[in-house]
């Protein structure tokens, strides 16, 4: 079995095969999504194309060309036909950025953080408070806000708040890091868990004495940055109308807009993460993870480096938080629960702890599983239950399936089983971490 697969891989990854396969995926995926925009398998083909592209041995320039074609042209066009896809990719990007940030803390520096979502909350609430009417409502009772209160800032301030989110989250990271640096391993895990809960409880409760977060009601509406000027939009509208079948609305454009924004953020996140990894700082983090005593004896300042890890990891979440608040136009404490932290950690470990392509893949896989595959599966079964379909061999009518066995209710159960099985059969993740080979050294051999 093993050799069968690796032989297959070898055969498929030589000569003209790779490019053929990638094109097959691209073309079949695009066309089938275009023709049946609601088909899950069509979308799965399209969405695995980047992964295939990543693994196949193809000239770098062609790779980049295909990648850009997919990202800039194909996906937005198909996405306007079914905005759900843009949402899926948006969430993939959001969680991938979170996973990359957490990967710095857990994967590179080896500091187990179970409250990572706190930094996400900091970024989100920063823009939520200032980009909404909340600043004008500081003294009103949550839920009883007058509707005519003015917005506090112009929506264009959003761009600044992405950076402010980065800064604030990094600062919070240091704030958390400072007192707990002496704490190690599982002790650190519980402290960060506590910290995450503290931030959530604060978001939930800071509606008094002054109403900063609007408590459990959450803050809404939050402004979005304005779209490009009408003249520019008109060009796009004309260009897209024939492809999509109707002139795209502003709402649809916003989906594309956030899609691109998320992609830019994830691209920056990847760049920052890889560059940090391949540097003195990244090496110091790995050294600390492997052996603290030896690292410090090599002159690595533990405090500074751990704080740097916390700050760097947190900053990713800060940026994404601001983006999230603007996209949703609503934030509430429910988004920042402990389970969300666990979710991001799961993505990191499923993907491959310490592996940048791994955690991105992990995030994408979990998002896809959570909001598409499992949902679709249970919808499909629900359709079956409403139809007259019968399971052939055992002659069981789907209609008679007990209501209590409704698969829609048991997504978490399936997810749990997947987690356990993954850990047993692929403990180092889907794409395990690999050390960078240094060319200079290779040359000498």
């Amino acid at each position: 079995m093993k050799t069968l697969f690796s032989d297959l891989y070898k055969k498929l990854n030589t000569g003209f095969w790779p490019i053929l396969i990638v094109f097959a995926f691209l073309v079949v995926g695009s066309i089938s999504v275009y023709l049946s925009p609601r088909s899950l398998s069509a979308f799965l083909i399209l969405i695995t194309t980047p992964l295939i592209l990543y693994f196949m041995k193809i000239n770098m320039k062609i790779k980049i060309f295909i990648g850009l074609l997919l990202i800039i042209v194909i996906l937005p066009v198909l996405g306007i036909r079914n905005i759900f896809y843009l949402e899926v990719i948006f969430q993939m990007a959001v969680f991938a950025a979170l996973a990359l940030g957490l990967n710095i803390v857990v994967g590179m520096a080896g500091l187990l953080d179970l409250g990572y979502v706190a930094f996400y909350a900091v970024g989100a609430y920063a823009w939520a408070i200032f980009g909404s009417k909340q600043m004008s409502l500081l003294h009103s009772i949550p839920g009883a806000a007058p509707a005519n209160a003015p917005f506090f800032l112009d929506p264009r301030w959003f761009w600044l708040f992405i950076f402010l989110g980065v800064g604030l989250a990094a600062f919070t990271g240091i704030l958390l890091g400072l007192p707990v640096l002496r704490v190690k391993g599982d002790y650190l895990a519980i402290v960060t868990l506590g910290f995450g809960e503290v931030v959530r409880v604060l978001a939930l409760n800071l509606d008094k004495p002054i109403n900063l977060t609007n408590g459990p009601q959450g803050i809404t509406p939050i402004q979005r940055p304005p779209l490009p000027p009408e003249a520019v939009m008109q060009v796009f509208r004309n260009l897209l109308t024939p492809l999509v079948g109707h002139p795209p609305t502003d709402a649809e454009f916003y989906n594309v807009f956030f899609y691109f924004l998320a992609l830019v953020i994830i691209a920056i996140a990847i760049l920052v993460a890889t560059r940090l990894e391949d540097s003195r700082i990244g090496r110091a983090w790995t050294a600390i993870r492997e052996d603290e005593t030896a690292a410090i004896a090599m002159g690595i300042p533990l405090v500074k480096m751990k704080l740097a890890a916390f700050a760097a990891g947190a900053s990713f979440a800060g940026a994404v938080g601001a983006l999230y608040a603007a996209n949703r136009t609503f934030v509430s404490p429910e988004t920042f629960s402990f389970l969300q932290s666990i979710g991001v950690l799961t993505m990191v470990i499923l993907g491959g702890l310490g592996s940048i392509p791994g955690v991105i893949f992990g995030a994408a896989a979990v998002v896809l599983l959570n909001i598409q595959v499992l949902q679709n599966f249970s919808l499909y079964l629900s359709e079956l239950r409403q139809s007259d379909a019968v399971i052939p061999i055992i002659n069981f009518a789907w209609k008679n399936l007990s209501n209590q066995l409704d698969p829609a209710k048991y997504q978490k159960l399936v997810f749990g089983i997947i987690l356990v099985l993954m850990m047993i059969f692929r403990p180092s993740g889907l794409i395990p971490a690999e050390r960078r080979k240094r060319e200079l050294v290779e040359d000498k051999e």
Partner: protein
Amino acid sequence: MNKRLLALLSVLVIASMALAACGTTAATEEAAGAVTIKIATQSPLSGGQSLLGVAIKQGAELALEQLGGDLTGMGYDVQLAPYDDQATPDVGVANAKNIVADTDILCGVGHLNSGVMIPSSEEYHTAGLAFVSPANTNPVVTTRGYLEVNRVVGRDDVQAPAAEEYAFTTLGAKSVYIIHDKTAYGQGVAEFFKAAAEEDGMEVLGFEGTEETANFDAIVTPLIASNPDVVFFAGIYNQAGVFFKQARDAGYEGTFLGTDGMDSSDLADIAGDALTSGGGMAYTTVAGPVSAYPKAAKFVEDYTAKFGAAPEAYAAQGYDSMGVCLAAIMAAAEAAGGKPTRAQVAEAVRAVSYDGLTSTITFDEIGDLPTAKYFIIKVNATSKDTWSTNEIIDSFDLPSPGKGE
């Protein structure tokens, strides 16, 4: 290792390519038959809040089964598309986009949590898809003035004052202790109650929010020390029942008060004697007890028969929301003389006058019930079986406050 993974993946994907091809043909075949109309539900079906979320879905499912016949008679294939929002905004919004992208879906029922409804309804609004909420009492849900967003329940800023009115005027309470569950619903209600109480000059001895569901000792102790005339609990019966029991056990003798979140026979099972001893317990609701509504009695019977358990809170509301959807689609289909558009359905929902389980449902210009009758129900039951012995002791007709200024 990666290589094997990749090879495996490619095999899988090639397999799914084949599947996709089959899928497309299946879809086209289906399109050749009856015209499909889908109605979505979205509520938490898994996780800790699924008890209520499943109730919404099952209520809607029952309604579709019982009331969908007319549409089927017109030659449509009417289907339910249940989505699980997992009580989290992320999933809710993603599902909303998925729902919106399914052009067969003409109307929707959901959500349980205002925190999920508010961001998700932005999507419904932009897509022009009508949604009827069976549970969201947060004012913001409708005060945004979206055509597509409606609800068959009251608002926090209405029923809380009704409860306060009862406490102050009818019970003559001088002091109150307010507890809420730290959800958008509970806290909203609690704040409005507090404002009303302060206006009337009632002494608010405590105002506590808690996410605790099991051990209320720490809250009960100071509560008993301050001995309020009334304890107002803003939350869901699930949590409240335990609280009532523990407070009573610890020696509290005054009256408990709640809102429509208490409206479940399970409350009696959880709290037992605590509901009738001392000053007893009462709650406000837009729906009278089952005994007052023969239709509701039949609903309980049918529901229990189909799902093997009595309906939880919001099941009836889920049923009514679906009823509204179906009535509106019928009306729109008749008017359009074929499968209606989403816009037509949304207009029809707003214009609906539907004879629901609990009352006749119509919507005002922002999607609220224009005036709702609020009943004060005194609980006489100490177990599930005797829930029907509860009595209406008061009722108020209160208009929706509208959009606010």
